[in-house]
């Protein structure tokens, strides 16, 4: 073959070689229909961070909850029973009659991925780390002791009362922090006197202060610990990790290994919503968590073969009012605004894919209302359907006047509203434009301003800089947590043991920016103190039918108070929209409690099979 002929073939040969290289270097496909299949997703709560340790206690870590990082349980997110936990490394548990101690039995046959059994010692040492992190104190945990090699007892701190004590097993919904780690790896980080130090920190005085400082120092040491390999008690363990992907392989020693039908999991790195959308568009992901997106992007993602899995999320968006500032101190004015703002129109623009307009103003998401109210009670609530005539009547009754299409306050000044929006909240930004349009058309000129990031927006709200602002409410599943977003610390109510103290605006002890009256008179209900009622929700024994019944009765009163008083205008309830792709896998869970967990829990329950 002549050199000239070789030269003429060089380009086609190069292209062919490159194509072969590209084909060879493509991600390996998954073996269909087999339990060795490769499942691709992104970290639901973990963003792969180069150099971060495989240590769940580090703020920036490379572990994947439910896959290789395990808790004793997983919170079911049930607003009717917020103590409901799904089994994790704990197979069963029982609460004492006093509600102050929890006896937990570990899963029979639970082992770490190095073959060693998961024992009570692992739980006790892990719990000691929770105290260092401040996570145990959140649940009023006092001590953890091993009864035998597979049973532990978790005891509440002396004098404490936490009616959500069972949630120590799996954390409050969305805030998993109660990791179980191997004592063989982490035990050496703890001094032998750790439990004495923990006990001392629960006391008072200088000894307690010193003990707390010791725990804080220990926490830093534990945070920085970087295990060389991933030792997991979960369905998978990390085989290797690079800056953009993590490869997890099935843990043959997992206690329910027989239920796992996936051999390998690839976690893709994601640093932005756009990246997740790109993965979804390309059909790369078998499952993806909630990702905010516009309607056209949602349609594009669905057209690419992904199926949306929608379930209620226990959070809602709302406008807030500082009731120290006129005219927001007048219930008629707040009610009028509720009649002017069309929640459906606002949600349609603000959160079209991951929201549903709140059916009315209650302080709880609409899907949770049946847990607190009877049908008759729900029907009796004021829906605040758009009605400008009613709004006009209310405002005139409150002493405001309308001249040439502009509303004037009783003091003669024109009524204008400034609505600041925190940076990065695109849905609130869009929704604000609709609210501005509706209010301005009604005669209340409204300006939308760009506020700082959420971490700075909140202090501004708390210090009264924004008479009208944006807020997230209805953060369940517990009834107290739900309504405390209105009648808790943000209204000056701070629990102190068995009582609650009320702090006025400006007091550093609380972040009171709502400033609602102590008592309100609600038609059909009489005079009630919503703050006290909300606090009472935290004192009930929710492990008994009586307690749950009392919760329902108290919550009903709080809801009726919110509905009448309108301390906030609830706009839309968020909907958790996850995506699954059935191109390679099937057998997706349908039970809301399971769907609401990360896919590791799905797989541990036998869901998710390769096609």
């Amino acid at each position, binding site marked *: 073959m002549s050199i000239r002929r070789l030269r003429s073939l060089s380009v086609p040969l190069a292209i062919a070689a490159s194509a072969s290289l*590209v084909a*060879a*270097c*493509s*991600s*390996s496909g998954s073996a269909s229909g087999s339990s060795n299949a490769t499942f691709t997703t992104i970290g639901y709560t973990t963003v792969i*961070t*180069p*150099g*971060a*340790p495989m240590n769940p206690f*580090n*703020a*920036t870590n490379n572990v994947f909850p439910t896959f290789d990082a395990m808790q004793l349980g997983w919170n079911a997110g049930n607003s009717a029973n917020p103590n409901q936990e799904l089994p994790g490394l704990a197979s069963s548990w029982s609460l004492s009659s006093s509600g102050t101690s929890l006896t937990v039995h570990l899963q029979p046959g639970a082992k770490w991925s190095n073959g060693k059994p998961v024992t009570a010692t692992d739980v006790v040492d892990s719990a000691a780390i929770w105290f*260092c*992190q*401040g*996570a145990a*104190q*959140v649940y009023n945990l006092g001590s953890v002791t091993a009864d035998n090699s597979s049973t532990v007892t978790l005891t509440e701190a002396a004098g404490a009362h936490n009616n959500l004590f069972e949630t120590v097993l799996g954390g*409050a*919904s*969305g*805030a998993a*922090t109660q990791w179980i780690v191997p004592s063989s790896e982490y035990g050496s980080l703890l001094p032998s006197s750790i439990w004495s130090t923990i006990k001392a920190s629960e006391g008072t005085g200088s000894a307690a202060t010193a003990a707390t400082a010791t*725990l*804080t*120092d220990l926490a*830093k040491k534990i*945070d*920085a610990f*970087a295990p060389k390999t991933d030792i997991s008690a979960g369905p998978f363990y990390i085989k290797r*990790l*690079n*800056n*953009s*992907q*993590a*490869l997890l392989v099935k843990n043959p020693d997992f206690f329910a290994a027989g239920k796992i039908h996936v051999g390998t999991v*690839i976690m*893709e*790195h*994601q*640093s932005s919503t756009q990246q997740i959308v*790109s993965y979804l*568009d*390309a059909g790369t992901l078998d499952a993806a968590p909630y990702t905010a997106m516009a309607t056209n992007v949602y349609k594009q993602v669905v057209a690419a073969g992904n199926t949306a899995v929608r379930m209620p999320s226990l959070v809602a968006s709302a406008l807030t009012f500082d009731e120290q500032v006129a005219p927001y101190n007048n219930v008629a004015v707040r009610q009028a605004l509720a009649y002017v703002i069309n929640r459906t129109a606002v949600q349609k623009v603000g959160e079209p894919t991951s929201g549903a307009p709140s059916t009315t103003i209650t302080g709880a998401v609409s899907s949770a209302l049946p847990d607190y109210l009877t049908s008759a009670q729900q029907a009796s609530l004021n829906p605040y359907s758009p009605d400008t005539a009613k709004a006009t009547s209310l405002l005139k009754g409150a002493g405001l006047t309308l001249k040439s299409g502009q509303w004037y306050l009783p003091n003669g000044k024109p009524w204008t509203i400034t609505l600041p929006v925190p940076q990065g909240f695109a849905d609130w930004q869009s929704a604000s434009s609709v609210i501005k349009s509706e209010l301005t058309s009604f005669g209340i000129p409204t300006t939308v301003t760009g506020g*700082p*990031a*959420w*971490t*700075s927006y*909140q202090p501004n709200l708390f210090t009264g800089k924004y008479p009208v602002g944006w807020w*997230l409410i209805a*953060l*369940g599943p*517990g009834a107290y947590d739900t309504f*405390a977003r209105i009648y*808790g610390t943000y209204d000056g109510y701070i629990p102190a043991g068995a009582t609650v103290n009320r702090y006025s605006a400006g007091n550093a002890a609380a*972040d009171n920016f709502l400033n609602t009256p102590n008592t309100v008179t609600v038609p059909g209900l009489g005079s009630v103190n919503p703050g006290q009622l909300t606090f009472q929700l935290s004192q009930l024994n929710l492990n008994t039918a009586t307690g749950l019944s009392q919760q329902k009765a108290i919550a009903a009163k709080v809801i009726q108070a919110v509905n009448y008083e309108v301390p906030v205008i609830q706009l839309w309830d968020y909907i958790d929209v996850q995506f699954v792709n059935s191109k390679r896998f099937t057998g997706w869970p349908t039970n809301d409690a399971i769907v609401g967990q990360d896919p590791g829990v799905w797989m541990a329950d036998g869901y998710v099979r390769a096609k």
Partner: protein
Amino acid sequence: MRLARLLAAKAVSGLVMIWVVASAMFFLVLDMPGNPAQAREAQDILHGMTPAQAQRETAAMFGFVPKTPLADQYGHYLWQLLHFNLGVSIAQEGTPVAHIVASAFPWTVILALSGILISFLIGVCLGVLAAVRRNTRLGDAVTLGGAIVNGIPVFVIAILLFYLFTTIWALFPQGGNVSITYTPGFNAGYIGSLVTHAVLPVTAYVLAILGAWVLTTKASVISVLGDDFILAAELRGLRPLTVARYITRNAMLPLFTILAIALGLLFGGSIFIEDVFNYPGLGQLMISSIATKDYPVLDGAFLLIIVAVIAANRLADLTYPLIDPRIRRS
């Protein structure tokens, strides 16, 4: 002696520039609102904890609040810099910033240098073609193409490449630097995966400055072609290769200036390119450290880029006398 004085002057001025920029960065970054502890606290509150509970947890996790006076913080910062200590990451507690930045730096350098080299080679060839064939359709087409590409912002180039070749046609991986399914090491699969993952980001780097090379080379070559010494060389009957060498040596001089500037542009463009392609270099590191308010890592990454750009510029300054005898003699 004069050369030594020149070298020393360049080195000192470079160090002064680094100090000025490092100081400016320190104060600018501190002016950013919020800190990662606040971000973590806000997240915990959003998940149902009371503010007191969230504060306890974040204080235990991050263990700090920067409460020392600003002057002390600045002095400490400079002292650490002198000892090449970039501090410890806030978000990845306990991890030295130097370690984090050092792991990201090679990925940016490899891509950026590859991009410069490839765009230089292609751009110079096209620029020469455009100059030699000026006033022809081919020359005009090359010039127009260079001008168009030069006008497209780097983030647009990156997004277009990503969309076309990973989503529409799915010819290349969607992101990352290597597929996790290959065992790291000197094996065909791993090396091939590295190359495949680098193709699109490098192409973005290439296209980002290709237009500049084409247009600058064309202008430079045209300018040299019109010089008398080239005409004299042709009239003396020198071989075409020799004439070409004369043209090249003189036309290349302005390109060295652009080479140093190009490095700065590409490092700046790395933020967009690495974000789009999820490439774990300094650009992506800066974005993530901004999101987590990780001041030390942000400072460290910025500083490394600035040092690299200043060093490259100084190198270009020092190399110029070597390639241009007129500068050397003056």
